[in-house]
């Protein structure tokens, strides 16, 4: 499709852009989300416990596999910056595609991980209780010890048994 645009039009509009100093980026939704994920839960700011649990879960799964943040990002084909934010910032809202990729990489059900990440709503409160218990049991220490490993494996089992 050929589009005729004059030089004057291009430059006038460009000058307007400079004067306003505006950004023009569009597109906050991810193109990929798990098909069986429930609708995005936009009120999950009120569920920081699951965010803590999600970041802790990703961190422990990574360490269990003896992976660096960079190598996990590369293997799971996700952005390294977002992975750092997931692990370090309890208020970070991950992209659905990132959670989908992590679920595939860790071999856990995508809907469960979506719920843990606060991107969809769990059907009952027990899931959140499990997430909080996991977050409490797995407080960060220098190395992945037996207790953390047990907590992690128990929680993987909870995630895997959910439909």
């Amino acid at each position: 499709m050929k589009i005729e645009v004059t030089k004057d039009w291009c430059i006038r509009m460009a000058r307007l852009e400079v004067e306003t100093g505006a950004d023009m980026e569009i597109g906050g939704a991810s193109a990929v989300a798990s098909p069986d994920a429930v609708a995005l839960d936009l009120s999950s700011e009120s569920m920081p416990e699951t965010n803590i649990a999600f970041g802790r879960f990703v961190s422990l799964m990574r360490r269990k596999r003896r992976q660096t943040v960079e190598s996990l990002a590369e293997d799971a084909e996700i952005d390294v910056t977002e992975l750092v934010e997931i692990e370090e910032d309890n208020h970070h809202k991950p992209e659905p595609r990132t959670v989908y990729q992590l679920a595939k990489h860790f071999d856990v059900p995508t809907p469960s991980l979506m719920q843990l990440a606060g991107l969809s709503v769990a059907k009952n409160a027990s899931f959140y209780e499990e997430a909080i218990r996991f977050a409490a049991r797995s407080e960060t220490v220098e190395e992945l010890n037996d207790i953390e490993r047990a907590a992690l494996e128990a929680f993987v089992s909870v995630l895997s048994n959910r439909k």
Partner: protein
Amino acid sequence: MSIETSPVFLLDVSSGQPIDAELLDGIAEQQLVHWEDEWMPVLRDAVERMKAAGIERTKWPQSRHWDWRQKAQGFDRALANPGFCVTCQGMTQGMMFLDLLHKARIKSQTGKELVYIEYLENAPWNRRHIAGDEARFAGVGSLLVRAAIELSREEGFKGRIGLHSLPQSNAWYANTCGMTDLGADPDYPHQLRYFEMTPEQAEAFLAKGNTP
């Protein structure tokens, strides 16, 4: 499918001079390589700088997690999802994906077809809040919006376009583009604001660049 090239111009911000550029009606492998090899390192550096400077997260580039390759594969060159890009000096300066299956929401246009802008991103070195006073080229966003309007006309949609704007961009679409702000969309992730342009507003936008 062959990609057609239209000659356009960008403004070199530092010299104030027009620079030859191209508007392409497609996004090819070359653009995805530019995004991976050239855009992403600049975006990552920008995020690191902002993080180190203690700048709050909401002010970081909101497109930092976008994956254009994944978007391109997702759309898989579907006829309903055409793309456009602007190149200059051998480098991709901006990209946009569209969707032709959306309907208008403004009362006077309800149910009529429009061109929906799915994704639009300017190269990080052209963005003032990343590159500051060293922003390289201006005019990319206007050209891509113009391309969406022209496609809308070609499809018989009379220039109608719609989009969900990121918060950092709301002012541009409301004030400079003159689009109608239909408010935060409760059905859209992150409740982004939805903007729509009527045929009359499209005329006004095009006229803006023709007025001395």
